């Protein structure tokens, strides 16, 4: 029942949000509906036409030339660089996890020491 109520609430909220959204969209469109440029349209187009006559059109986009295949030497160099980067990353990772592991071990040992002390105190 609780689930059903929550579902109803969620649906109500969703419906309200959607209605709000639609109203807002209508409001924004209405707010700008009757806005006109200060200059008459004919004058604006006359200016635009004069500018367009002076502006050359761009030719259709030329197809991109295919990128040349890398040489064997470049490929070898790239592989070597990638190998070095990976090795450096591995070292960094192991250092990071090593630190983390050491912290966990210190904590566990400390906890064990405390438990032993506690048990010893109880025995005494």
């Amino acid at each position, binding site marked *: 029942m609780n689930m059903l109520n929550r579902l109803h609430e969620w649906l109500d909220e969703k419906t309200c949000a959607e209605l*709000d*959204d639609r*109203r*807002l*969209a*209508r*409001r*924004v*469109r*209405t*707010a*700008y*509906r*009757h*806005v*006109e*440029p*200060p*200059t008459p*349209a004919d004058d*604006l*187009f006359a*200016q*635009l*036409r004069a*500018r*367009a*006559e002076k*502006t*050359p*059109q*761009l*030719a*259709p*986009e030329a197809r991109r030339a295919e990128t040349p295949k890398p040489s064997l030497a470049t490929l070898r160099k790239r592989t070597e660089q990638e190998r070095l980067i990976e090795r450096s990353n591995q070292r960094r990772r192991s250092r990071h996890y090593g630190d983390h592991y050491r912290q966990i071990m210190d904590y566990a040992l400390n906890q064990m020491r405390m438990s032993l002390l506690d048990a010893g105190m109880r025995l005494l």
Partner: protein
Amino acid sequence: MSSDGELIVRLRDEDLDALGELFERYRHQVYRVALAIVRDPYIAEDILQDAFLKLHKYAHRIDIERPLMPWLYRVTANLSYTFVTRNAKRRVPLDDVNEGQLVSPKGQAPDRVTERTELRNDVREAIETLSTQQRTVVILHYLATLSIQEIAEILECPVGTVKSRLHHARNNLRQRLQSEQLFAELTHEYA
């Protein structure tokens, strides 16, 4: 009436009358988006011209199989957003934008027109109070009806950022309009 694609094909042959037809067809939408973002009617006019100049310049590169309006909106939004971000300190009071540029719809009672004009101005003022980023997202989403994905591409930011800006903008607008008890009135007015 020629389709957008036919007009662009004519424009490719330097037929500037085709550009005139496209200008007449889409100038309102382009101008409104530009004005909403830059908040200066004269700069919005420049952006309107620049957007259509780009249409002329890139006519050969536009895909005529796809609708033109999203392309125009994208160019307008980019031009407007670039202008605003480069001139962040410049600010025009909203009164300057409103005065003398509103055309009353024909056949409506003057008091009704005034009332509606006031309501419209209040919504515009509320949008005006938003930050540039939030305002741009609101205008592109609600006025230009672009999807969140398209807005993210225009603004060159992640989809999540657009969603977040829209969410905050919506909350700010709601708060602002509700505080003036406008939201309910407007809802009643236009529902």
